[in-house]
């Protein structure tokens, strides 16, 4: 135990070492994984460690009289391989809005959801943000899932000056844009990739870890930090294998992917895939007699993964943005309400959507009906206690709460197994 006197003495000796400014390091990036960290003590400029500002006018605009307070939801609700996320997202938002309306809405005025699909036309998310801004007059938007769609949406939101709360896009680059109108309350693939990399290489002493991923932006950017981290830790992946997102039509057997894995025979596989595709892949991997451990992204936490993979899912480890097994009255209440409505357990995305909506509603409570002041109120949130636990926002308005892991045991996810010594 270190006494208070000792702490004071240590502070006096090394004030910077005792600094509590955890946000001075972007993305919880450990020293070993800093880009070019082996070659330079510091880059010419480190971005994202200073608070984002919006310096434009608008805060002075008066609040209008409205019949309902409109909130937009932008999600893949049909025609997409991500509808399983979009629908869970919408369910989480609806639950939060229903609860708030039952307790009086916004100063007696009910909240109203305006829901739009993000996967219609080419670049639909841009068109939908225009409609949210000028036709629907929403005060904020919750959404969306796909990294490309979100990037497209946020540039329009920047121009129309509309706060966007993202609850499901884990693309690290989403907030690495300096757009002061985007917020994200879910841990990103950077944190998840760091956690897997440290666990595999430092705690399990694996050396040759293959990457198997979706051939889209989610897969490409999802594993980007793991790929870079593996190199920086001295273990470049022996192979990175893609699979077609339209696998059902093009390659339902995953024959090429399985053959490549067999040939390389890695110590483990890191899998970045949607739940359904991951289920098929894991079933094929095990069916081919390959026994290497599989470490997967958070999307496998959806029920369809287990349904499809069946027994082959046993032992699969997933990185998890929050721990639903930790005792929390907030989470238990949310889970009970969700079960009553949907006769199902809430997913990762439903829980984060619920929290994201609550953050937006709290900002509206504080700021009133003015998009600029709502943005400011969201930007002022450093920590938010939600059903997903403590959400810790960094200086680019992204959740940097620590992630954890879960292991599939007997058809159920067992959280905090394996226990990781270092989570990000």
């Amino acid at each position, binding site marked *: 135990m270190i006494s208070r006197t000792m702490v004071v003495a240590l502070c006096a000796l090394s004030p910077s070492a005792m600094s509590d400014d955890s946000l001075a390091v*972007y*993305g919880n*990036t450990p020293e070993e994984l800093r*880009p*070019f960290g082996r070659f*330079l003590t510091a*880059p*010419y*400029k*480190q*971005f*994202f460690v200073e608070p984002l*500002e*919006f*310096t*434009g*006018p*608008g805060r002075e605009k008066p609040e209008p009289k409205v019949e309902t307070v409109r909130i937009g939801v932008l999600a893949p609700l049909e025609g997409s391989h991500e509808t399983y996320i979009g629908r869970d997202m919408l369910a989480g938002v609806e639950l939060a809005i229903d609860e708030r309306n039952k307790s009086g809405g916004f100063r007696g005025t009910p909240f109203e959801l305006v829901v739009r699909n993000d996967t219609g*036309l*080419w*670049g639909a998310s*841009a*068109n939908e943000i*225009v409609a949210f801004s*000028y036709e629907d007059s929403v005060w904020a938007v919750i959404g969306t899932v796909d990294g*490309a769609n979100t*990037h*497209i949406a946020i*540039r*329009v939101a920047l*121009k*129309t000056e509309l706060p966007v709360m993202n609850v499901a896009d884990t693309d*690290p*680059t989403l907030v*690495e*844009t*300096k*757009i002061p109108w985007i917020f994200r309350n879910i841990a990103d693939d950077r944190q998840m990739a760091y956690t897997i990399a440290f666990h595999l290489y430092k705690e399990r002493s694996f050396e040759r870890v293959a990457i198997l991923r979706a051939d889209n*932006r989610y897969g490409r950017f999802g594993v980007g930090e793991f790929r870079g981290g593996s190199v920086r830790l001295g273990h470049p992946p022996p192979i990175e294998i893609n699979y077609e997102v339209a696998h059902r039509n093009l390659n339902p057997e995953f024959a090429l992917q399985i053959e490549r894995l067999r040939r390389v025979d890695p110590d483990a596989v890191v899998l970045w895939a949607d739940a359904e595709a991951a289920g098929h892949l894991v079933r094929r991997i095990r069916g081919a007699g390959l026994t290497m451990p599989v470490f997967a992204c958070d999307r496998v936490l959806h029920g369809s993964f287990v349904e499809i993979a069946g027994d082959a899912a046993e032992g699969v480890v997933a990185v998890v943005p929050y721990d639903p097994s930790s005792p929390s009255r907030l989470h238990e209440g949310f889970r009970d309400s969700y079960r009553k409505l949907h006769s199902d357990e809430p997913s990762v995305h439903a829980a984060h959507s619920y929290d994201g909506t609550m953050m937006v509603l709290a900002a509206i409570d504080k700021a009133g009906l003015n998009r600029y002041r709502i943005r400011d109120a969201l930007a002022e949130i450093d920590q938010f206690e939600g059903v997903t636990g403590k959400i810790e926002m960094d200086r680019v308005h992204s959740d940097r709460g620590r992630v954890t892991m879960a292991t599939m045991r007997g058809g159920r996810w067992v959280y905090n197994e394996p226990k990781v010594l270092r989570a990000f």
Partner: protein
Amino acid sequence: MISVWIVAAALAATPPVYHLWESFHTTDGLPSEKAFCVAVDRDRVWVGTDRGLACREEGVWRTYREAEGLAHNAVLSVAVDPATRELWAGTMGGLSRLSAGRFTTFTQFDSGLPNDVVFGVAIENQNVWVATTVGQGRYMVREGRWQVYTPENSPQHEPWGYAVDYADGKVWAALWGGGVLEFDPATEKWKDHIDPDREMEIDLFRDDGLIHMITTAVSYRAGILWAATYFGLSSYDGYRWRGYMDHDTGLASNFINSVKAKGRQAWLCTDKGLSVVDYGSNRWVTYAPRDDPSNYMGPWVARNYSEGELLNTVALEAGLANNFVLGVDFHGEDVWVATAKGVSRGRLGGAKSRKGISP
């Protein structure tokens, strides 16, 4: 004699201070306070706002909206064909052409326009280029034909256009996440310019190439490419890249909404004011509120910098309409500026300022 010449050369390369600023608002006839862009066509000044397209001619503002045939009231970009004087407006609902007093609109439903959100537009010979949120498009006016550029046929990993410019026989495109693209219409070949470190969270070396992969605007004049980002400014003269940030130059802010070059000088529209830099001397003039950069009510000053050193500060009787600057264009020696709360005109003149129209 040599020292006199050196001093004269340095003075010539120093951007002049615009002492005279006047601003225009809805009370003067603008359809909205929020101006996204400005383009000068001889004696006409076109302004794209979020509530219509405004034109100032002989001191009078006129507005065009959807009711007159404009594709969408939110106008993000404007370009005028110098040969035909046709106006092309990139809106949040398609591309509009104003010719002989009539609008023709192109949307992704009825033409080859890649997407209806048109961030940038530029004229290349008889062709019109657009930077849309999902792809660059080239409309060959005479043929009535579109060519769309995406990762399938050009060196970009995502087709996220943000700005486009044409000068000296080359088309330049700023891509969100894709750096700068250069297109040679003569050979139909593309070339990309990207951030050499390829990392989003750092700039490894100042002068090694583009500051960042996310570029917001591009302008090419007098053999110098200027690329704006939300992380600072880059220039390239064909041999050497150079980076500029707010901590090492006179740049008002790293958050640069747009850039427009005039000769060897670049004008930077930032969220904290307007800056102009001379390429050869790296001398800067920055127009910003004196104290709090977001307090546009002022008082305003012009600050002169050499490299990163502040040389002097000049008080202005009137400043720009707002510190959040979105667009700039030139009318002779005059400069027109689109801001988030009005439009301003800057004029050269004596140190004695003339009071502008207050916001």
